[in-house]
């Protein structure tokens, strides 16, 4: 498809074309990009007891002097404060660790599932895809809540294990790291399965047949043919789950304990109970800086995928 054809329909009326671009563009500029600039600005401000609880305020009516005063009032104090307060630094590291571990666990669980789905008879594949997507339509909150009832000290898991006589004392799973991993794997699994399935389904089976004809054992052709060819799906899936998992708030808040304090919780605690808006903004900026590399890689993969199809 050439460029001239691609831009033809809307190209015939430049004003209509401009309107179609401008409306969503402006919406996102005002409601998505501007808020981040505000977060950046407030992260350099100071906490005060006032409404809104930060200063300096930019007062454009005050002229050039006011603008100079405003910039003089900004500081890096909130960022120093993060590094001085070890709990927040630990929250960053534990977020990265938990998200990375959960991503690997998901890959290990999702790969066999996606593989089996791609090998299933063609007629039932759409149903299987639908079955993977369906739980994702129910709220994350509900899915996490369902696990509280299972993992609780008096929950269903402990009750059935005790009933079976496997354990005498109830296991402490809720409010531990294990519970957070279970919650993350459970909540994000469809995001891992679907990209993997998409790349495994496209896989040309004649390649495997060729390998088999040449005497390659199945496990070897799996490692040397299937796995390398599904790598785009692996990469897409990993980033798609890793990035939101780092900033996850609901899962560690409901399933985690003192050992799983994540950065999203630190941000929430700074903002709501402590009313430290500049501090919360500094945490958000640092979190974004941590995520910017994976987000850029993910977008790159995504754009290539789209342009490859177009």
């Amino acid at each position, binding site marked *: 498809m050439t460029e001239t054809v691609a831009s033809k329909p809307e190209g015939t009326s430049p004003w209509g074309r401009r309107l179609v671009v401008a409306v969503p563009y402006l919406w996102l500029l005002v409601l998505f990009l501007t808020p981040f600039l505000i977060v950046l600005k407030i992260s350099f401000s100071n906490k005060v007891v006032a409404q809104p609880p930060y200063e300096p305020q930019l007062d454009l009516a005050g002229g050039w002097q006011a603008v100079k005063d405003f910039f003089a009032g900004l500081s890096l104090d909130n960022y120093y404060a993060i590094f001085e307060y070890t709990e927040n630094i630990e929250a960053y590291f534990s977020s990265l660790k938990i998200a990375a571990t959960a991503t690997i666990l998901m890959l290990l669980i999702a790969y066999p599932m996606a593989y089996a789905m791609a090998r299933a008879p063609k007629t039932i594949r759409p149903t299987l895809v639908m079955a993977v997507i369906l739980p994702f339509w129910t709220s994350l909150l509900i899915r996490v809540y369902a696990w509280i009832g299972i993992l609780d000290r008096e929950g*269903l898991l402990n009750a059935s294990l005790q009933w079976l006589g496997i354990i005498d004392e109830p296991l402490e799973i809720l409010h531990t790291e294990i519970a957070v991993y279970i919650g993350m794997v459970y909540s994000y699994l469809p995001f891992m399965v679907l990209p993997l399935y998409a790349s495994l389904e496209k896989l040309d089976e004649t390649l495997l047949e060729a390998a088999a004809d040449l005497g390659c054992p199945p496990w070897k052709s799996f490692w040397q043919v299937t796995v390398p060819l599904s790598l785009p799906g692996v990469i897409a899936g990993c980033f798609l789950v890793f990035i939101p998992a780092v900033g996850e708030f609901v899962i560690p808040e409901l399933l985690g304990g003192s050992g799983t304090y994540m950065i999203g919780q630190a941000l929430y605690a700074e903002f709501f109970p402590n009313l430290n808006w500049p501090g919360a903004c500094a945490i958000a900026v640092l979190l974004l800086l941590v995520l910017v590399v994976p987000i850029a890689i993910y977008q790159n993969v995504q754009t290539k995928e789209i342009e490859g199809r177009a």
Partner: protein
Amino acid sequence: MTKGLSKINLTALTFGFAFLYLPIVLLVIYSFNASRLVTVWGGFSTKWYVELWNNQQLIDAALRSVQVGLVSATVATVLGTMAAIVLVRMGRFPGRTLFSGMIYAPLVMPDIITGLSMLLLFVAMDLSRGMFTLMLAHITFSMCYVAIVVQSRLLTFDRSLEEAALDLGCPPAKTFFVVTLPIILPAVISGWMLAFSLSIDDAVISQFATGPGASTLPIEIFSAVRRGVSPQMNAVCTILIAIVTTGVIIASIATKRAEVARMREERAAMAGR
């Protein structure tokens, strides 16, 4: 390879789907438990649903959620469809990279950052927080999902029908409504449903975007869940699961039928009948 499923594959699927569905099934079963204790089955009862019916605060929150969901899903579908057209049909224009960045970023952005930044925008704009700001926030994050869904349909679509209409002198706007929209309609509808369910499920962003007296159902559920498991919450969750599941299944059957009918028509048209 496609002669059915090997044992390993079958095991992987069984365990995978058991893991995905068992917790939800248990939650639904225990919403009909007469006992207040989670682990003790005290017989079948619908008393938690009755109790729910009398919980005015929760019902108000639910109605608010539905209102916000309907409005924001509809606006998000319009904006998201426009964004998808921009991504697929507009070729290169200044600021395209920034635009596609702003479409993809919200999909992976942690909720807590989106929520915080939205709240600060509303404070800076001096908007008092409530239903209106809640809708603005929901439209913004869900339009990007709509854009992705519609975009993938636009990419696999036969342009010759559109081009035929244009060649015959149909104005571009009319071509869109008469030719393009009916073809991409299934994707637009599933985009709307996705936007609606995202809106009605969101707790974190809403907590930042709303103000006093305008809490939504997920906010109420979240604060109740923090206090622990209760059979009443199981009942709320069961109702939500039932609504979502029915909606998704009906929609997928409907889109499948529409798809089949459309393909038949297209084939008939091509055959010159």
